[in-house]
């Protein structure tokens, strides 16, 4: 692994060019969507002679992936696909990723780079408490642990007291989970009279799937006495491991031999030079089942110019600074306000004025409250009736979003309106920026 991490950048660019040439042809020949999209844009998949030539190819968006649910974007027959993951989102419009054995191997290798950056390997005990399942966090970290030769403990999320016992007694050295869950573990341990800085044996945490601020990182590092590495990834291109911070904590090294990154102006689609902020666009270089050509991630970042002190030659992206759409990340789950809208419009008892408030609770976890204005159609005549409705809305939201939401009914005209539109989202989380 050291060899590829320190390869001259020209060598990496050669790998990228060869890979991209193959990827665009593979997409064109095997995926009806790409054939149509390339033809419409007048893009000849055989015309790529340099990395810049990729700019002639059209973009692909999350909506395109959804429109081709479930298997429409697969470039290999299902018989070659070993595993499926789905991005968090409403049932029915999820985006699906397929992985051949080769894809799973790449994934493990990419995530294992984080362990490598932490100077880890077979002597480490990797504690994975991302959720295992369709979410790519759990198994992505798991494959990374296996690839690196470390002892991997598949804890999955939840049962925090058991997590704490294992962290203390099994001597885990690297923990992989969302940053908010790491904070929750630390705070719960302190409440139990266990000092994680002394009683745990952690060296590094590989944390991602949700944004966190520098202050939040410092708090974590102080409480757990370890080093926090930010990991980036998305189901649409693979999962966690597309880019990971090294020990320098100064930008996330892209796995450039597997992903080609462009930064574009989200309004014009034009490619921006290194150093400028814009939307990250990714092209897979050697994915088999679910390749993507110029996938618009909606994440805002920039390519950090210059070389990293760690010696790794793969270019770095800055930490994600926001989204070009209105997606929220709540407890690691992607939530779009439109999903909430879809649920809310089925309830006549409340008006279309509602607001989502995201805050941090006393356990450092994200807490979502939805406020909705009561309609005259609702016989809110008794506390029982109000509670019933609140429970019903809450249950429907939980099903649609996979996130628990506390519902609070409010009086008419109490939700702030600006220019006749409700301010839909109020994000009060301390950890974010």
């Amino acid at each position, binding site marked *: 692994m050291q060899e590829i991490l320190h390869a001259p950048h020209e060598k990496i660019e050669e790998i990228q060019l060869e890979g991209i040439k193959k990827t665009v042809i593979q997409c064109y020949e095997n995926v009806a969507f790409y054939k149509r999209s390339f033809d419409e844009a007048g893009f000849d998949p055989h015309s790529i002679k340099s990395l810049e030539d990729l700019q002639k190819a059209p973009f692909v968006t999350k909506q395109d992936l959804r429109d081709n649910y479930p298997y429409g974007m697969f470039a290999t027959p299902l018989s070659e696909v070993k595993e499926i993951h789905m991005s968090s989102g409403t049932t029915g419009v999820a985006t699906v990723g397929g992985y051949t054995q080769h894809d799973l191997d790449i994934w493990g290798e990419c995530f294992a780079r984080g362990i490598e950056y932490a100077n880890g390997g077979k002597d480490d005990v990797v504690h994975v408490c991302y959720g295992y399942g369709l979410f790519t966090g759990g198994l992505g970290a798991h494959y990374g642990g296996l690839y690196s030769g470390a002892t991997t403990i598949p804890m999955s999320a939840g049962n925090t007291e058991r997590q704490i016992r294992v962290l203390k007694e099994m001597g885990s050295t690297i923990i992989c989970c969302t940053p908010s869950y790491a904070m929750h573990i630390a705070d719960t341990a302190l409440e139990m009279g266990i000092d994680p800085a002394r009683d745990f044996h952690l060296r590094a945490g590989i944390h991602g799937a949700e944004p966190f601020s520098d202050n939040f990182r410092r708090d974590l590092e102080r409480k757990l006495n370890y080093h926090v590495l930010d990991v980036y990834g998305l189901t649409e291109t693979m999962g966690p491991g597309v880019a990971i911070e090294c020990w320098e904590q100064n930008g996330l090294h892209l796995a450039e031999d597997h992903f080609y990154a462009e930064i574009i102006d989200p309004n014009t689609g034009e490619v921006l030079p290194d150093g400028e902020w814009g939307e990250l666009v990714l092209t897979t270089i050697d994915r088999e089942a679910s390749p993507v050509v110029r996938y618009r991630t909606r994440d805002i970042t920039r390519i950090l110019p210059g070389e990293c002190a760690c010696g790794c030659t793969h270019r770095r992206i800055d930490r994600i600074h926001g989204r070009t759409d209105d997606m929220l990340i709540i407890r690691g789950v992607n939530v779009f306000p439109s999903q909430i809208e879809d649920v809310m419009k089925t309830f006549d008892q409340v008006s279309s004025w509602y607001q989502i408030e995201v805050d941090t609770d006393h356990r450092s976890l994200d807490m979502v409250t939805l406020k909705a204005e009561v309609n005259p159609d609702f016989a809110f005549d008794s506390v029982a009736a*109000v509670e019933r409705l609140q429970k019903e809305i809450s249950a429907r939201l939980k099903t649609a979003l996979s996130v628990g939401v506390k519902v609070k009914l409010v009086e008419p005209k109490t939700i702030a309106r600006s220019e006749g539109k409700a301010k839909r989202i109020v994000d009060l989380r301390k950890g974010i920026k």
Partner: protein
Amino acid sequence: MIDQITVFLENKRGRIASLCRTLGDANINMAALSVADTTEYGIVRIICSDTAAALSALDAGGYRAIKTKVMAIAVPHHPGGAADLLEKLDDLDVDIEYFYCFSTTDDMAVLALKIADPASAAEASWAIEKAGFHVFDQDEVE
């Protein structure tokens, strides 16, 4: 059955005072006011002189108010008077969603009662009258 106005109010300081002021300014006299409160909101139940005028005043004032039908029943004003009525309802298998007392004279108290199942309200009303309790009509409370 008589009209009751139900108002959804946030549990905020001064909110109920301003509700009462709105009704006062509209020259509405309240015969009963009862609040079911939680930490976040309260459900205010009002029986008053002119339901339609009260509703339109509340609506104009930006309140969320609805009209609900409740049963108003007279019980003798002596120890065990309310218990007699409630036991009778229990015997009849009538489920009460909520109730409150809204006026008393020397020899009589009036209870406002919401029957959980509106379909059984008429039958319950008839059975209660048969048992000797007086059930009020709208014009008797105005």
